């Protein structure tokens, strides 16, 4: 079965500093990868997704992620974080070739220090 691993449960970062949230995947089929963000008391919101083509994917709110097949990684980055980026971030991939059965990682809580 396909799976994703987020090794960092919490990441504290100073405001305006860069951040990288790590995601590694395991898949025996075509690889599609997603990053979702969950703000406090809100539902999950799609940040970006990799389907094919360019390995550098740009998303909303200034985030980007790079698909690295040799390292089986899909790390999320932002060059300068803001207080409003405080949230839980989840990496996910589908179990099949459609979107119907997403498997999520355990999440990384990003805390921005003023």
């Amino acid at each position, binding site marked *: 079965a396909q799976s994703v691993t987020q090794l960092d*449960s919490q990441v504290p970062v100073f405001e305006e500093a860069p951040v990288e949230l790590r995601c590694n995947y395991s898949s025996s089929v075509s690889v599609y990868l997603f990053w979702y963000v969950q703000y406090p008391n809100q*539902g999950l*919101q799609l940040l970006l997704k990799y389907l094919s083509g360019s390995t550098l994917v740009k998303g909303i709110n200034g985030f980007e992620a790079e698909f690295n097949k040799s390292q089986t990684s899909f790390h999320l980055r932002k060059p300068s974080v803001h207080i409003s980026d405080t949230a839980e971030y989840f990496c996910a991939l589908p179990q099949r070739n*459609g*979107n*119907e*059965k997403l498997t*999520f990682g355990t999440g990384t809580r990003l805390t921005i220090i003023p």
Partner: protein
Amino acid sequence: GAGVSQSPRYKVAKRGQDVALRCDPISGHVSLFWYQQALGQGPEFLTYFQNEAQLDKSGLPSDRFFAERPEGSVSTLKIQRTQQEDSAVYLCASSRGLAITDTQYFGPGTRLTVL
């Protein structure tokens, strides 16, 4: 409404009670998904619908869990004889379809606490 809505937002149940959680998807979305998110964990797939057809219920943890979407719009997740281990946030999502290009849009969730 513009997004997926869920009700109630919070539910407290005594062990052994039955509960029903409602999801209103985005209008026109044919696909609907239910997830369970335990404290400190990522969402875990429970089941999904294409219109009124339940196509996969492999994630439902026991036969106490039942989901329906009789008219292909609103869905209800029912949990019978609730147990403490059922305490979690239950998330609903909807999408236009099942293609990989179709995004799942999530509701705010229902936090269920079983005492």
